[in-house]
């Protein structure tokens, strides 16, 4: 197995172009598991953990651009107030050791339907920045995933960053698992409220072949809130609105039975989480 260890972004892209079969490794918390289990025997590894550009984040044009190599620990510490939904998700990832090594770039690279970074990024309408020696493209996250563990990432491309607006309002994330820490999501849900633009964002995890938005629920709630003038004068959300929102979130999911849970339970849990997460986010909004 060849091992490439670029020290700069330009070198990384050049190496990826030259060795499209090389598997990028960032924190290694997914890649090493696959190697250990003999599920993957790549011809080469491309270790991008020493590329300084990937470990940076900055703010420009009202957007945050966060390098693919920023760890969960750093996300929580450095970006918690600006990306509260993502920080909540980051706190639930694995254990402290995994959060120190694991990156959002790696989460996106694995493109697992259970990746915890995905629902809050979907809810925040984030985009993924993909780069190659051919150039750079920005892909809206809901167009990034193409199937379980599949994405639009081309063989010569690397994920350079994700781009997202700092939370314009309250955000929430919750995840159901069968133990109280270090657990892969059985189902997860994120919601983001943008009072200025009157937008609602959602993200569903582990309940469909890919992470996805609950478009129907977003539109329904945006319409309800606009019609009732609730963004301007927030009042408690009526029960039927919460119910309908939860129902539409569930309708967007297409879960399966697997070793971690049943499809029926996943639907049920999504409805409960959608209701709760929205009511918490709305309560935050009313407080401010």
């Amino acid at each position, binding site marked *: 197995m060849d091992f490439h260890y670029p020290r700069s972004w330009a070198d990384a892209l050049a190496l990826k172009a030259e060795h499209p079969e090389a598997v990028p490794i960032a924190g290694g918390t997914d890649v090493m598991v696959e190697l250990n289990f003999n599920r993957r025997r790549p011809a080469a590894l491309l270790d991008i953990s020493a590329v300084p550009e990937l470990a940076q984040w900055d703010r420009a044009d009202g957007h945050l651009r966060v390098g693919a190599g920023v760890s969960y620990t750093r996300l929580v510490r450095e970006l918690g107030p600006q990306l509260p939904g993502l920080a909540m998700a980051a706190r639930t990832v694995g254990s402290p050791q995994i959060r120190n090594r694991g990156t959002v770039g790696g989460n996106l690279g694995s493109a697992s339907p259970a990746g915890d970074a995905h629902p809050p990024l979907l809810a925040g309408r984030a985009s993924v920045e993909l780069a190659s020696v051919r150039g750079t493209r920005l892909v809206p996250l809901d167009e990034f995933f193409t199937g379980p563990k599949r994405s639009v990432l081309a063989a010569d491309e690397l994920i350079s960053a994700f781009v997202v607006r700092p939370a314009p309002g309250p955000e929430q994330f919750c995840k159901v698992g069968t*133990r109280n*820490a270090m657990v892969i999501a059985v189902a997860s849900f994120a919601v983001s409220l943008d009072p200025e633009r009157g937008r609602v964002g959602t993200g569903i995890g582990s309940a469909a072949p890919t992470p996805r938005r609950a478009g129907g629920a977003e539109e329904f709630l945006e319409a309800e809130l606009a019609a009732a003038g609730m963004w301007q004068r927030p009042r408690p959300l009526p029960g039927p609105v919460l119910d309908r929102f939860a129902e539409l979130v569930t309708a967007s999911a297409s879960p399966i039975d697997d070793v*971690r849970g049943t499809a029926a339970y996943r639907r049920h849990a999504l409805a409960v989480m959608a209701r709760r997460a929205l009511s918490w986010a709305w309560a935050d909004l009313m407080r401010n």
Partner: protein
Amino acid sequence: MSTLTGQTREPAAPGARTGNGIGDDARRPDGTQKVAGRFAFSSDLWADGMVWGATVRSPHPRARLISVDPSEALRIAGVYCVLTHEDVPGQKTFGLEVADQPVLAMGEVRYQGEAVALVAADSPETARRAVAAVRVEYQPLVPVVDPMKAMLPTAEKVHPSGNIVRHFKLRSGDPLAEAPVVVSGEYEVGMQDQAFLGPESGLAVPADDGGVDLQVATQWLHVDRRQVAAALGLPEDKVRLALAGVGGAFGAREDVSLQIHLCLLALRTGRPVKMVYSREESFFGHVHRHPARLRYVHGAGRDGRLVFVKAEMVFDGGAYMSSTRAVIGNAGTLGVGPYVVPNVSVDAYGLYTNNPPCGAMRGFGAVQACFAYEAQMDRLAEELGMHPVELRSLNAMAQGSLMPTGQVVDSPAPVADLLRRVWQAPLPPPLPAVAGVATEGLLPGGMANTTHGEGVVRGTGYAVGFKNVGFSEGYDDYTTVRVSLAAGPDGPVATVQSAACELGQGLVTVETQVVRSELGLSDVVLETADTRVGSAGSSSASRQTYMTAGALREACARLRAGLLARAAARLGVPEPDLSWAHGEVLGPERAVLGLSELLEAGPLEETVEWRHRPTQDVDPETGQGDAHVQYCFAAHRAVVDVDTELGLVKVVQIDTAQDVGKAINPGAVIGQIHGGTTQGLGLALMEEIQIDAGRVRNPSFTDYLIPTILDVPPMRVQVLELADPHAPYGLRGVGEAPTISSTPAIVAAVRAATGRRLARVPLRPQDIVGLDEAGAEGGPSR
């Protein structure tokens, strides 16, 4: 927080109180090494010129084995050999009780993961590639996987002898007894794994005499040796075993896994051979806890007194026998719980199927039964409008009670007292009254922010359980030790030689404590556990502290007798005029002879083969007989918070009370109780090997979940020390009791919070919210 209460009635050992003797919190001799990461586990073994072994395993739960073609594997550079059953020179089958399992598959494979062939290669990587290159042709057969169908006379047979490995029958009292209050229920226990952290590993080195030296992590060196020697066709003295560092066992290392394979490869290649299972392979490489279905009917008077219990239990033993017979014996004899029941009928079946083989795991048959009978006791209490502790106490066995087997309980059995203690222990602060506040990690869902109090209901549950200590039903159960005593440069040194296995439980600490106390010295050397001495029996069945302490006490007594004889000769006085105190011999007129002086004449050595009192086989038709040596008892109270909408559970607090007879090492006792309670929590809430048509769906720690620190609540432990007059120092085995009742206590608490029957463990979120159709008893009960 932990407390030690109660009293010892047994006189203290005659030796000195060195602060590291019996009853002290002596430090583990291997503690610093383990904490510092310097302890060598079996996976760290190394020898110059060694090669690596690996195993070809069946992907099918049942198939005809047509052919094994090694040619492609043998062409890989660095591959030394590929072995099949044809290369097994001696007995081609092995087994703990009955040799029914092929060393390497012959004719038919009977479970997914069964070993079919072995390879040796110059690196683990090459060995892995060689495994993939061995061409095995199978003709898959329909596996027998449903235990209820496997029982039927019409079922296809997994072995020619039929699918029923044992049918244990117990009949006592009046079979037609009736009672005014009757509750019945069906229960199910999933397949738990021991989930030790150190995977199977060992190193076999061929010896010049044509024999082999094997270092391995195991629970019982001599039973391994018996099986290895038989398979190799060698006399036992040509097969020498030594214990390598064990990373947990919990029953899973009582059966042979890679022992025979390693030795076959070493003798074939003429080189040292090492094997280490991966985590995934480990799930296929050892036996698990028997999954069970249990049907109970309890009858009681209106006053709550039990009139009868009828039970039918079906334990799925999987493809090979392992210890199924003994597990069934426990489940059957202990099946009504620590209660006095005048009329009992139990039928317990252990089966062969094409599911993974099951055998020993902490609690060994008592766990499955306790989950069911304690659920029944709660239902009975509910039916009678009694408090669950009141009902249990009313029926609790005590010293002098009769077991349903007719055996008299002839030592303290403080069942009611243990229950009272956990009942009266302080409760945790109540749930916060207002919902809507995020409480990091404290509510069900833990760190995952699933509730701010919505849907959360608190519940409390109780359970008590018991288990036999030691090997039962007439088994000739003994332990050998050799203790020598010699003068050293810094004073007298005692050296202990024993084959008893340290698994992490702290046996090594106990050994040093007993010898220090008995001989009044501080320098105790433990030799590596190996087969140079006789068998120590298994480190299982909560027996090894009992047995080894008994053997060491006897050896030390004989050494003291030898010292007294020397002193008598030296002082010219008769032995009765001498006494032993604090490591010195006291004679008349203040004569004192120290150990060092007495050892000037040379070292002393004693070898002891020590037995606990004998037990009896039970009557095959009635289950009557003095089957057991001793019982251990524990009670638990669990307080849980349940998110009743999401089906998630946070255990808030667990209180345990356990009688240990005598805490040889109080710190280690608490550790055993914490660990055992946690393993029971795992079975209650998450631990299950999921099987589908004979195939394991979750052979990894990604999906076989064990509790994390956030799942384990504060545990308060009350330890009683009511001496058992028949046991060394009055002690009771400690390791298993806490595992038995913690599961039913937690499930009872979840039932209390949800009002659901919850008849199956581990509880799944879908059961707790009532979504699962399969858990037919999942509907609300009130």
